[in-house]
């Protein structure tokens, strides 16, 4: 069941500068994301999907407009406050997994927990629980290079959810995977929404991936065209 908005976006504008040229990327974007919603953002390359995702995740700043996540206007936070806010509220899933190659699956998942006040024992309990959830208990001591693409993405998902964040943002999470692995990842994300009530914002080109979402929004040249 969908609940009140966890993310509120109002009159969002974002542009980039290339030399003296100003390139508008997002124009007057306004919409809400409900708690427990699985939202897919679609659109052609350069339409501003990833920029919008980055703004929601607090890793880029808006030109104007507001983004409120869990009641917090993230544009008003300083860089240091934003880092703390991200650590507590955002789990990010990348297209290319972005695991640290020298750390094992277990250590990669443990990494974000270093910023919490948990003891070593508590951290290990959390990591073991999420690795069991993504069905990778038997691979926890493997380095990323010893895992398949699908397994690496499951480690990345475990890393994203281990801090129990407010929202999960995923940038093309199946973009680097074969069809079978992509299905596994989408099923896992679906399970996170239905069984654990997670809110997911996913950027994708893949219509099959978008089918798993509750809501699909399209962007064209920085403008929200349909939902």
């Amino acid at each position, binding site marked *: 069941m969908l609940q009140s908005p966890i993310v509120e976006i109002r009159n969002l504008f974002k542009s980039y500068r290339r030399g003296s040229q100003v390139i508008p990327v997002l124009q007057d974007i306004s919409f809400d994301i409900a708690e427990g919603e699985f939202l897919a953002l679609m659109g052609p390359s350069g339409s501003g999907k990833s920029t919008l995702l*980055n703004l929601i*995740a607090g*890793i*880029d700043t808006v030109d104007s407009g507001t983004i409120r996540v869990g009641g917090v206007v993230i544009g008003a936070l300083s860089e*240091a406050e934003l*880092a*703390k*806010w*991200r*650590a*507590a509220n*955002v789990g*990010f899933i*990348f*297209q*290319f997994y*972005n695991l*640290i*190659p*020298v*750390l094992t699956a277990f*250590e990669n998942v*443990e*990494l*974000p927990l*270093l*910023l919490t006040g948990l003891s070593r024992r508590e951290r290990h309990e959390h990591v073991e629980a999420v690795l069991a959830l993504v069905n990778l208990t038997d691979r926890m001591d493997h380095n990323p290079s010893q895992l398949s693409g699908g397994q690496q993405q499951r480690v990345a998902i475990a*890393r994203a959810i281990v801090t129990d964040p407010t929202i999960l943002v995923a940038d093309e999470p199946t973009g680097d995977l074969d069809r079978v692995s992509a299905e596994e990842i989408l099923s896992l994300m679906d399970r996170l929404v239905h069984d654990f009530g997670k809110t997911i914002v996913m950027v994708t080109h893949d219509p099959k991936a978008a089918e798993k979402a509750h809501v699909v929004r399209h962007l064209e040249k920085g403008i929200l065209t349909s939902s």
Partner: protein
Amino acid sequence: MFLLKLILRNAFRHKLRSILTVVGVAVAILAFGLLRTLVGLWYLGVESSSATRLISRNAISLVFPLPIAYRDRIRRVEGVTGVAGASWFGGIYIDEKHFFPSFAVEAKPYLDLYPEFVLTEDEKKVFLHDRRGAIVGRKLAAKEGWKIGDQITLRGTIFPGQWAFVLRGIYHGAQKSTDETQFIFQWDYLNETMKRTIPRRADQAGIYIVGVAAPELAPQVAQTIDAMFKNSLAETLSETEKAFQLSFVAMTEAIMIAIQIVSYVVIVIIMIVAANTMAMTARERIAEYATMKVMGFGPFHIALTVFGESLTIAFAGGMLGVVLTFPAARWIEVNLSQFFPVFMISPVTILLQMAAAVVVGAVAGVFPTWRGSTIRIAEGLRRVG
């Protein structure tokens, strides 16, 4: 602890690159240590000289001797505790490759003035009673394979002829810095032979070593000695042993300065090489730093990771360099003893080596640390793939 693990694993992620950098730093630190030691050794004679010993020599030049009659007059100067005449002999054993310093000395007062040359009482007694007796340092004896009682013949260069000696003692140094490569024999033997062969060169000493009762008396005693022989045919120039040694060092000071500069240049070169390695490393890991920032890690954590890696590599190189310095110094001491009778690595040199390694790591890490910690997340994430 976790970050330390990450730093250590990152440091040796590209094993070949890291090992080459570590070896590069080690070689530079080794070279730095050896060059610093070499410069230090140049001044060793100065540093190990006694404050209660003066050297009186001919005021015109060291090449010109002083009459032996000066000895008793110097001995009578107030504050003087002992006087020993000595002459540089410059003998050659077998050929020039077997070079070692050789001196004719007035043995009894000389050994009293140089307590750092340690002989057993028996050796000393036999040496003092044998005109043809000689004593040598432990290292020289070991190098030439000499034993007490051996007959040794030197070919004279300054004092022509074949000079036969009997080895009566092997001294060892009271300190590690004492020169143990000298060949010392009785001045009487030299003088008596000169009386027979070249009488005009008899009854002369190259220098007088003058013992004084206390260091503070040295300037006054030196002045008195020089005043005593003023306007004579052989005026004296008396100075402390330290000043005498410094006058030799001053002749080669430019070379020493050049060596010092080279030792620093070596460090600067490896600094640039290490900085290049760290810059490459940081550039490759920008996406990882951005990913850590996404998770909420701040610039401090990223800086710690990059800077720690740079310091780890430099420190590993520094440690290896310091460890290698000891066998290298030993090799030099054994195989190049004719040039470096003592090649001793001082604790200060080791500290300087480690400090140089830390400086290399710190300087090499500055730019990558700044780059890694200030990278904008969105920009960093674009570097994936």
